[in-house]
């Protein structure tokens, strides 16, 4: 075990109970008045805001320690309860003690022999090494045995069964046991028997679980706030304490002047209610206490528990400085490593600069500029917001004191300067599901109010621009800046640790654009080519093709401009993915079935999703592996620019007419859809007459459903095929689908051909009204239309019942997503909590914080999936191809 970097180790934690005496001792004042402030706004003596419990108003002094507002830590007070009350947090323990101890003599209901044996057994268990679960189980077993016994082995008294009437009432044979009686019984349990209840006799007594005195927390814990109107608003806890004191007082009066038992009991129950809700206002079985406005009060348990509780909201997670949040929008002319920051944010966010002899003159200059400097032509210049003296005092820089302060700084001072181009920041989008959700970018200060970044970064962040917001953090130390630059920068995160391939690449229109630029190697006129190429940096134009005396350029040659020298790859494009026999139906030249790049020149094939897209991105992958992150990021930047340059010049759009198919196609779809309807009718008829042969392992009903589903599925595929026969690669939607830019051919088939069968939970629609989906159909109609089959296409439009069924199917998708995200989110949270402090050591061994081994070799093979080739250690075939080409 390695203790070198452990400063302190927790040896044990002890839980104890506060005794009434202790509560009184730590109390500075007994609170007896249920009021807070008098008419002048001065705290009432012995009230809930008594000055003995601390001060929250400036000017007043604490009556206990004499401290002023920030000096006094606050002190406890106490309330003497008129009658004892059960503590809701110890109900379980009280129940088990009532069950297992004798009501008369208070001994645990075990024979002396048993007591001796078990005592030896328990004392043999070392609490610091034994699994707490084992201790728990042992105690539980013993207590259960004692509870089973109704006659006490010590005094022969009979103890009837105690029933817990949730949440706080105990009954014995139907009669209520008052907290007072419970307390008396618990008092009778001898110290020596406490061991069996899991109580350390040195630190607690069971009767302390019944409250007779209630501690009043310091005012600092429950400060009142003054609204602008001058009205005072008390904390929820104070409200609750007011209730408790009021009822306790009334209970005392009623008891002392001999009111009827019934009234006393009612008040007692009310006191119990108030104290229960004071601890936990979500106790099962009682209505939560409410504010006058109807809002449920936030009492002690609510302060600590759950996502908004102290632990998760204030201790595990905190709000931070030097951060900012804004809407995001795209900017293809930024590098994938950059982020555009609005000026207003750049002026507010600062970087600390420690003054040394190298930067002092420059920083003096910057301080002189003040807080809002610009160049002569109005461009942003970084200024300075704060100066920090060596003694830690902060000086706020203003335009008035800038001149003087610039002369005051010296070595050892720190200057908080505004953001400037090239600063490194962390950029993050929630939910942060993987490490690429938070990457380092370099800053570009831009006009406007949004954060901007290159579109290829959308995939790792899972961002789009429909209103998404993202967070940005400015790094404050030199070490973290270096770390961020080396390991968190976007270009270092191109490879995903999930599957060992690139997760960053061109998306949507960029893929479309490169597809159009390279498919069948189009010729671009000189003007078009020059325009396109003007978006990127390149050495020299490719060799032109001369035709009719005019210069033309090949699309692939233009694309080759952005490929690095020395790159060799051969792979099948997305377009030709399904082609067999090395012949692709979508390419004019059979040689284009494979994308061939030799020494950074695209010779054959079409660039599409497979080449540059995220998740596949073979070209990106190979560049990253062979030439490193810098080259890969440069390539992606160029892809974005080239794609935007070409597509915005060429133009690309789609509309409803792109889905027009000829009449004969429509009638053919009609035909096959009618055939299928007939077939389904026959199946239903066969089912009704009992002639349907069940499939192995299925009932006849299931068989019918399966058959119909496959029939409707078949007809949709068929109609899709017919439709796509008429929609070729000159159709924009088909280009998008075939290149992998967006949508699938299935979606096009739905628009042009037929939408097909709608389903809920994998089966046809069958719910709604009694034995039918809608009143438009006969009961028990198993036909296609009655069960959610849509024969229309989106283009033709859906009839009312079809539209309704489509909405049902669509709703399922939405609900699914909602349920899935919340569930997988919680699962992820548990996984992260379980794994967060595992680490991999120098020997690639996975171990926990105490050095216990989890895996002898990380991932069993010791390979970092980020550096692997899609999970494999090395792709030998590719290395050979890169080295020797096709002849091997």
């Amino acid at each position, binding site marked *: 075990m390695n203790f070198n970097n452990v400063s302190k180790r927790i040896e044990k934690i002890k839980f104890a109970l506060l005794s009434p005496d202790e509560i009184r001792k730590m109390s500075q004042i007994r609170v007896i008045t249920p009021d807070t402030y008098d008419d002048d706004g001065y705290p009432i003596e012995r009230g809930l805001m008594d000055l003995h419990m601390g001060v929250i108003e400036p000017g007043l002094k604490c009556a206990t320690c004499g401290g002023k507002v920030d000096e006094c830590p606050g002190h406890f007070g106490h309330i003497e309860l008129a009658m004892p009350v059960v503590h809701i947090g110890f109900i379980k323990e009280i129940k088990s003690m009532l069950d297992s101890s004798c009501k008369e003599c208070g001994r645990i209901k075990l024979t002396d022999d048993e007591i001796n044996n078990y005592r030896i057994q328990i004392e043999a268990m070392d609490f610091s090494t034994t699994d707490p679960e084992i201790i728990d189980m042992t105690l539980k077993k013993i207590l259960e045995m004692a509870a089973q016994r109704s006659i006490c082995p010590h005094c022969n008294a009979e103890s009837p069964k105690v029933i817990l009437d949730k949440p706080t009432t105990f009954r014995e044979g139907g009669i209520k046991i008052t907290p007072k009686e419970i307390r008396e019984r618990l008092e009778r349990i001898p110290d020596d028997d406490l061991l069996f209840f899991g109580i350390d006799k040195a630190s607690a007594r069971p009767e302390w679980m019944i409250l007779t005195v209630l501690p009043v927390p310091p005012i600092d814990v429950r400060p009142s706030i003054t609204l602008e109107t001058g009205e005072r608003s008390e904390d929820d806890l104070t409200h609750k304490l007011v209730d408790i004191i009021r009822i306790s007082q009334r209970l005392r009066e009623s008891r002392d002047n001999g009111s009827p038992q019934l009234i006393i009991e009612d008040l007692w129950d009310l006191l119990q209610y108030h104290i229960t809700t004071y601890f936990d206002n979500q106790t099962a079985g009682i209505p939560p206490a409410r504010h006058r406005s109807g809002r449920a009060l936030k009492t002690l348990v609510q302060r600590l528990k759950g996502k908004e509780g102290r632990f998760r909201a204030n201790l595990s997670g905190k709000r931070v400085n030097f951060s900012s949040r804004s809407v995001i929008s795209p900017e293809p002319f930024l590098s994938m490593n950059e982020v555009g920051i609005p000026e207003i944010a750049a002026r507010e966010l600062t970087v600390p600069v420690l003054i040394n002899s190298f930067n002092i003159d420059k920083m003096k200059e910057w301080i002189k500029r003040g807080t809002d400097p610009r160049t002569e032509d109005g461009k942003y210049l970084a200024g300075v917001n704060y100066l920090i003296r060596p003694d830690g005092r902060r000086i706020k820089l203003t335009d008035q004191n800038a001149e003087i302060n610039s002369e005051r700084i010296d070595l050892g001072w720190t200057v908080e300067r505004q953001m400037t181009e090239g600063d490194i920041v962390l950029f993050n989008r929630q939910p942060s599901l993987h490490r690429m959700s938070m990457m380092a970018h370099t800053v570009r200060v831009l006009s406007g109010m949004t954060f901007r970044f290159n579109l290829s970064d959308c995939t790792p962040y899972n961002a789009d621009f429909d209103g998404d917001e993202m967070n940005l953090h400015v790094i404050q130390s030199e070490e973290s800046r270096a770390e961020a630059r080396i390991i968190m920068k976007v270009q270092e995160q191109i490879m995903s640790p999930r599957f060992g391939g690139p997760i960053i690449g061109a998306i949507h229109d960029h893929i479309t654009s490169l597809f159009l630029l390279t498919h069948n190697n189009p010729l671009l006129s000189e003007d078009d080519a020059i325009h396109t190429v003007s978006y990127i940096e390149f050495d020299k134009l490719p060799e032109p093709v001369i035709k009719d005396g005019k210069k033309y350029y090949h699309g692939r040659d233009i694309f080759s401009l952005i490929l690095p020298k020395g790159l060799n790859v051969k792979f099948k494009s997305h377009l030709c993915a399904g082609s067999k026999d090395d012949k692709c139906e979508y390419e004019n030249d059979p040689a284009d079935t494979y994308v061939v790049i030799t020494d950074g020149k695209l010779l054959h094939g079409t660039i599409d999703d497979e080449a540059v897209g995220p998740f596949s991105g073979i070209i990106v992958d190979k560049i990253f592996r062979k030439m490193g992150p810098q080259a890969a990021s440069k390539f992606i930047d160029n892809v974005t620019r080239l794609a935007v340059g070409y597509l915005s010049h060429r133009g690309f759009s789609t509309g409803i007419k792109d889905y027009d198919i000829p009449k004969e196609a429509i009638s053919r779809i009609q035909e096959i859809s009618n055939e299928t309807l007939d077939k389904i009718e026959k199946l239903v008829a066969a089912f009704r007459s009992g002639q349907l042969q069940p499939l192995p392992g299925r009932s006849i009903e299931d068989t019918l459903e399966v058959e119909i589903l496959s029939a409707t599925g078949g007809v949709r595929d068929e109609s899709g095929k017919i439709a796509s026969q008429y929609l070729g690669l000159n159709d924009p939607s088909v280009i998008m689908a075939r290149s992998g830019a967006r949508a699938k051919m299935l979606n096009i088939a739905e628009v042009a051909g037929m939408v097909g069968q709608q389903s809920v939970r994998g089966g046809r629609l069958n719910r709604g009204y009694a034995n039918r989906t809608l009143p438009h159909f006969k009961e028990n109609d198993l036909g296609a239309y009655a069960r959610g089959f849509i024969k229309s296409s989106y283009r033709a439009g859906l009839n009312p019942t079809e539209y309704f069924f489509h909405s049902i199917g669509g709703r399922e998708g939405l609900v699914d997503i909602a349920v899935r995200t919340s569930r997988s989110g919680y699962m992820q949270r548990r996984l992260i909590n379980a794994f967060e402090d595992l680490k991999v050591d120098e020997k690639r061994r996975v171990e926990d914080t105490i050095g216990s081994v*989890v895996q*002898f*070799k990380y991932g069993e093979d010791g390979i970092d999936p980020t550096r692997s080739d899609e999970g494999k250690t090395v792709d030998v075939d590719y290395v050979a191809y890169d080295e020797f080409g096709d002849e091997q």
Partner: protein
Amino acid sequence: MSKFNVLEHEIVPEHHLVPVEEEESVLGKLNVTKDDLPKIGINDPTIKALEEIHGKLEPGRIIKIVRKSPTAGYYEYYRVIVKSVI
């Protein structure tokens, strides 16, 4: 009915008892102490099955588990027998 042996089930990986003499070299090879090894409860069905072959096993003995691994082909894992957790 013949008694079922968990070790013969196809989804249970091979479990081997490491002889006491070899324990030191195994721990040396892995560069761990016995306390840091992953654990296996003495009431684990596989330990019961191993006891059929080797006789009673005491806590502290080391078990070698050879599993198929999607990343490493075959992977050797070691566990030390501990008193049962439950």
